[in-house]
C-alpha cells in the first residue's frame, strides 16, 4: 500500500464535505462583538477609533509615568537618597565625589549628574515608569486582537514607503524602547524591508525613556504642544527617509495578507508575563549602559589633557576638560550649521550612551525654545543609544550597520540643518 498523497484542492474538497456533515450555522442577529469588529476595520469609523486608542495609550502612559515618577521617585531620590549619599561621602569635594555623586551641593538627582545619583535616578526613577505603561498597552492591544486591524488601517500609508501594515507593530514598540522595536522588525518578510525598518526606527523614533524625560522637562516648561510638534517632525523624517530608501534600495516590498482574528478577552496573567519579559530585557540590556554612560561622560568632564598628560579639572574651569575641548572644537558645526549653543556637545556625547540622560542634561543649558527644539531633534536623530546600536550590529551585520550609519549621518545634517534654516526664515535663529 503506497503512502496516501493529496493535492491542496483534494484536501479542501474533503474538508468542505466534512464541514457540511458536521457544522450547522444557526442564523443569529449581529452580535455586539461583530459590530465593534466592523466599526474598527472600516476606515470612516476605524481611523478615529485608532486615533482615540493611540491617544488613550498616550494618556495612560503620561499619567502612569507622572504618578510614579513625580509622586514617589522624585521625593524618594531627592529628599532621602541624595542628602544621604551626599552626607556619607568624604566632605571635601574630591574627583571621586564629582564622579559618583556629581556636582557638589546639587539639590536634585536630575541635575547632579553623578553615576550614583542621575545614573540611578534616570533608569529606575523615570524610564522604568515610562516603559511599563507602554509595554502593558502594546501587550493589551496584541492580546485582544486589535493590532492586525490597526495594521490594515495604516497599510496604505506605510505601503507608500515600501512597508506593509504590520510595520506599525515595531514602530509602536520602539516608542517603548528601540531595542524590542528593532528586534520586532525581524518578523518582516524581505531583507530590504527589515533594513529600512530598523534604520528609520533607530533614527527617528524617540524611545520611551526619552519621551519620559521630555515629559518631565519640555512638557512641564512649554506644554505638551511642543512635545507633539517635535514628535511630529520626527515622524515626518520617518516617512520622508522611508520613502527615499524605498526608492533607492533594490528588492520588492511585499503585499499585505493577514488574518483578522476575532476580538478576545485578554488574560491578566499573559499581559503581565509579556510586559515582564520586555521590562526584564530593558533592565538587563539598557541599565548597564546607563550607568556606564554616566560614568564615561563624567570622566570626560573631569579629566583634562594638559600638554600630553591627564590632569584633574574641577567643575568650574570646565573648558579645560576633554568635554570642554570637544565643545570648542565642534562649535563651528554646532553653532554654525545647527544654530545651537556649544554646551549642547555634552548632551550629544551622552546621547550616544543614553538618550534620556542627554535630554536631562539639555534642560540644564540655557537656550531659546527654538534651539531646544533643534537640540532635542538632534539628540533623537543623531545616534541610537549604544544598546540599540549593539542590537543593530547583531541584526544587520557590520556592512549593514555601516550603511545604516551613513544614512543616519546624512539625516542628522539634513534634518538638523533644515530646522536651523526654518528658524532663520522665521527670524528667531
Amino acid at each position: 500500500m503506497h503512502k496516501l498523497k493529496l493535492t491542496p484542492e483534494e484536501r479542501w474538497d474533503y474538508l468542505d464535505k466534512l464541514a457540511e456533515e458536521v457544522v450547522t450555522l444557526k442564523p443569529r442577529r449581529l452580535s455586539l462583538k461583530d459590530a465593534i469588529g466592523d466599526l474598527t476595520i472600516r476606515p470612516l469609523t476605524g481611523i478615529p477609533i485608532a486615533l482615540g486608542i493611540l491617544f488613550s495609550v498616550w494618556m495612560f502612559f503620561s499619567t502612569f509615568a507622572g504618578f510614579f515618577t513625580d509622586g514617589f521617585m522624585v521625593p524618594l531620590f531627592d529628599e532621602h537618597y541624595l542628602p544621604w549619599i551626599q552626607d556619607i561621602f568624604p566632605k571635601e569635594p574630591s574627583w571621586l565625589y564629582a564622579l559618583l555623586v556629581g556636582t557638589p551641593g546639587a539639590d536634585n538627582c536630575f541635575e547632579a549628574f553623578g553615576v550614583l545619583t542621575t545614573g540611578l535616578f534616570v533608569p529606575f526613577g523615570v524610564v522604568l515608569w515610562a516603559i511599563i505603561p507602554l509595554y502593558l498597552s502594546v501587550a493589551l492591544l496584541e492580546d485582544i486582537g486589535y493590532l492586525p486591524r490597526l495594521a490594515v488601517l495604516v497599510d496604505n500609508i506605510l505601503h507608500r514607503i515600501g512597508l506593509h501594515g504590520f510595520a506599525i507593530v515595531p514602530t509602536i514598540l520602539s516608542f517603548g524602547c528601540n531595542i524590542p522595536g528593532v528586534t520586532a522588525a525581524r518578523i518582516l518578510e524581505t531583507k530590504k524591508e527589515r533594513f529600512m525598518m530598523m534604520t528609520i526606527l533607530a533614527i527617528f523614533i524617540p524611545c520611551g525613556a526619552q519621551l519620559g524625560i521630555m515629559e518631565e522637562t519640555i512638557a512641564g516648561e512649554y506644554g505638551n504642544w511642543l512635545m507633539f510638534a517635535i514628535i511630529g517632525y520626527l515622524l515626518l523624517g520617518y516617512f520622508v527617509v522611508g520613502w527615499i530608501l524605498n526608492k533607492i534600495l533594490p528588492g520588492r516590498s511585499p503585499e499585505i495578507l493577514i488574518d483578522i482574528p476575532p476580538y478576545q478577552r485578554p488574560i491578566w496573567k499573559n499581559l503581565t508575563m509579556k510586559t515582564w519579559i520586555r521590562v526584564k530585557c530593558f533592565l538587563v540590556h539598557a541599565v548597564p549602559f546607563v550607568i556606564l554612560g554616566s560614568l564615561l561622560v563624567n570622566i570626560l568632564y573631569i579629566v583634562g589633557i594638559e600638554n600630553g598628560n591627564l590632569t584633574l579639572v574641577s567643575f568650574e574651569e570646565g573648558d579645560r576638560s576633554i568635554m570642554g575641548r570637544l565643545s570648542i572644537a565642534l562649535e563651528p558645526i554646532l553653532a554654525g550649521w545647527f544654530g545651537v549653543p556649544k554646551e549642547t556637545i555634552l548632551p550629544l556625547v551622552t546621547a550616544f550612551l543614553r538618550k534620556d540622560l542627554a535630554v536631562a542634561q539639555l534642560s540644564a543649558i540655557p537656550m531659546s525654545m527654538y534651539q531646544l527644539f533643534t537640540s532635542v531633534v538632534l539628540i533623537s536623530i543623531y545616534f541610537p543609544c549604544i544598546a540599540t546600536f549593539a542590537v543593530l550590529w547583531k541584526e544587520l551585520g557590520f556592512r549593514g550597520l555601516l550603511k545604516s550609519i551613513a544614512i543616519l549621518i546624512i539625516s542628522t545634517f539634513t534634518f538638523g540643518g533644515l530646522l536651523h534654516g526654518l528658524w532663520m526664515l522665521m527670524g528667531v535663529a
Partner: protein
Amino acid sequence: MFKILLMGNPNVGKSVVFSRLTGANVVVSNYPGTTVDYTKGYTKIGGEEVEVIDVPGTFSLEPKDVAEEIALRMLKEEKPDLIIDVIDATKLERGLYLAFEIMEKFNYPLIIDLNMWDIAVGKGIEIDLKKLREILGIPVIPTVAISGEGIKELADMERIKKVIMAKEKKSMNEHLREILRRIKEGVKDA
C-alpha cells in the same frame, strides 16, 4: 522526557492553551539561525514530566514565511511523542487542513483541541462533536482556554496513551486514508 508539540493556525489561542498547560516556568528561546522566537514550558501530566513546545502559528506545511518554515522544521527535528493541534472552532476546516497535512506527511500521534468553543456558540456555529469524533477517529476535545474549561480533559494521560497505541498499530497516513473514506461514505449515508 515526554515531548508535546502545540501546533495550529495563528490567532487560535495556542499560547493561552500553552500557559494553561505549563503555568509559569516558561523559557523564551530563539530558533537557531532564524529570527523567530518560540516558547518552551514544562509540566506534569498524569504524574509524568512533560515538555510542551509552543510552535509558531502556521496555515499549512508548504511554508510561505519564516514562521511556517520553523513549524515544518520542528516537526522534522523535534520528534515529538504527541501533537496537540489547536483549532479555532469558528474556522474548523482551516484548522483541520493543517491536521490532515500533518497526518499525511508525519507519523506522530495527534489529538485535536477545538478551542474558542464559547465564541463558536456565540456565533451560532454548532459542531456535531459525536459525528466529528466518529469520522476522525481521534480524540477531539472542546476547550475554552481563556477560562481554562476543558484543559483537564486535554491533559489526560490515559487518553494520550491510547492514541499512541493506536498509532503503533496503524500509521497516521493509513489512518487519514480511513478518515477520507468515512467522509465519502458519510455523504452516502446522510
